[in-house]
């Protein structure tokens, strides 16, 4: 095939407008490689959710092409694309409907052409993995907000897609829940899964996601390493974001005359750097 086989996902000059004429995406060119973790960020209405809905064919480009493993998505159905690409939407209430947690998982497995034994086996293993054994026969409607979000994730993960897409995964979550999500992300990333997340969470993306695509008004504003893009004041404010706190601290320290090496980027670097100073100070005092 002539297409660039190295990139798993390839948007080629993609434009999209809704039937009512609203232009949602303009000239999108984007390549994502296998095993990458990438964040798509930008103000509300910038086209982020439109973009991810193209990955499994929920929306089709008005012009241009979206290729997955070199194949145009227009040649496949939503059903077959969804085997490769799992999108986890923001609101779990939009997908939970079964009588029990177990049935909810089985519904997701139904369209995969598995034998009865395989379905049973997969259901049990995913329920264990997400610690739902106790709730297997409970109604999904009675789960807490955090638990139902977890179930929505499990209901996609059991289909074992290669590409995972999350829409605002950390929204309204507390520290425990974010930790759970992060652990899962690391685990899946080790398995060579490609992970794409739409998020407003600057701190999370800066710490844990290596690459970011910034969007504004239906266009890609910038695409590159998180370290560089999220510390660029112009880009950050044009995409309605704010600078990460670690970076703000670094700038602040410089203004009060501290020399902060360039390789101090993440929280852990900053802690190490500061602890040197604070230790030194302590010993001098003593």
């Amino acid at each position, binding site marked *: 095939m002539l297409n660039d086989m190295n990139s798993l996902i390839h948007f080629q000059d993609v434009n999209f407008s809704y039937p009512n004429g609203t232009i949602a995406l303009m000239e999108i060119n984007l390549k994502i490689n296998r095993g990458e973790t990438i964040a798509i960020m930008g103000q509300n209405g910038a086209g982020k959710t439109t973009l991810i809905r193209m990955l499994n064919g929920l929306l089709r480009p008005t012009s241009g092409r979206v290729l997955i493993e070199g194949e145009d998505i227009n040649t496949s159905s939503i059903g077959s694309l969804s085997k490769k690409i799992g999108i986890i939407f923001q609101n779990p209430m939009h997908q939970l409907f079964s009588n029990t947690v177990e049935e909810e998982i089985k519904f997701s497995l139904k369209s995969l052409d598995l034998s009865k034994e395989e379905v049973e086996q997969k259901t049990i293993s995913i329920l264990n993995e997400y610690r739902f054994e106790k709730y297997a026969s409970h109604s999904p409607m009675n789960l807490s907000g955090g638990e139902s979000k977890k179930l929505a994730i499990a209901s996609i993960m059991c289909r074992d897609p290669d590409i995972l897409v999350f829409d605002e995964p950390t929204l*309204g979550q*507390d520290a425990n829940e974010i930790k759970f999500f992060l652990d899962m992300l690391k685990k899946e990333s080790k398995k060579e899964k490609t992970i794409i997340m739409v998020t407003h969470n600057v*701190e999370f993306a800066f710490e844990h996601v290596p690459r970011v695509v910034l969007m504004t008004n239906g266009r890609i504003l910038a695409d590159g390493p998180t370290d560089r893009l999220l510390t660029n004041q112009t880009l950050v404010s044009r995409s309605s974001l704010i600078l990460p706190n670690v970076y703000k601290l670094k700038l*602040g320290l410089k203004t009060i005359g*501290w020399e902060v090496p360039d390789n101090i980027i993440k*929280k852990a670097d900053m802690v190490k750097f*500061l*602890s040197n100073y604070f230790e030194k100070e302590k010993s001098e005092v003593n």
Partner: protein
Amino acid sequence: MSLVKFHNFYFRYKGNKIYALNDIKLSIEKDKFILLAGETGSGKTSLIRCMNGLIPQFYTGHYKGIVEVKGRETTTTPIASLSSEVGIVFQNPENQLITMNVEHELAFGLENLGISPKLIKERIQEVVELTEITHLLSKAPFELSGGEQQRVAIASILILEPKLIILDEPTASLDPLYAQKIINLLKKIQEEKKVTVLISEHRLDLLISLVDEIILMKEGSILIHDSTNNVLESEVFDNLNINKPVIYSIFKQLNLDQKSIPISLEQALKRCAHKNVK
């Protein structure tokens, strides 16, 4: 007199065995900027619903104890008449915009209270200036961005001139820049109007340096309610699974005295300047 006072209040929703609120003792005073924080499901929303009588009048269930708004019991005073004392802005602005244009949206609450159209006009004028939404007056809710919707939702409560304004995760669905703007707007309103603003929020970074008091909740109980400094110095704060401010979490790892851990950039820089490394 306290704006709102809880006397050993318990509540469980109809059909639930577990108490959503346990032995709540709390008083909210005037002219304060307060943060309400806790893990998800710790009862923040339920606590808020008690403050204008939605619990137990709208959300029924089993309750014990008393909640008073300016000395009036919330179990018997109609919610409508409490609305001019306590105003609540809920999580999803879209569900609060119930008319087809912003001007009507602002008028709605006052119409219900039987205020004359002339006075309504004056109040609209005042409130749109404060919340900077004059240019949106003739727009429909679905023509507004999320940030604008939230401003209108805030204005539609502000216009009732409550002494206590409560916001349940007001920035949840907003982009970070807008979220910061909304928090700053709320601080401005609190100072100019001398009202109390109480905000339930997950993103502590946005507002921790602005608040006077913090209430921490866990499993339906209030763990602590005190001035910002006292709460931050407490172990309760450190042990709770909430999203700590980034600055705090960095300095926490330096094994400093709990009392001297900065929470905001300004404090952090002061702390470091004071060290004077050079």
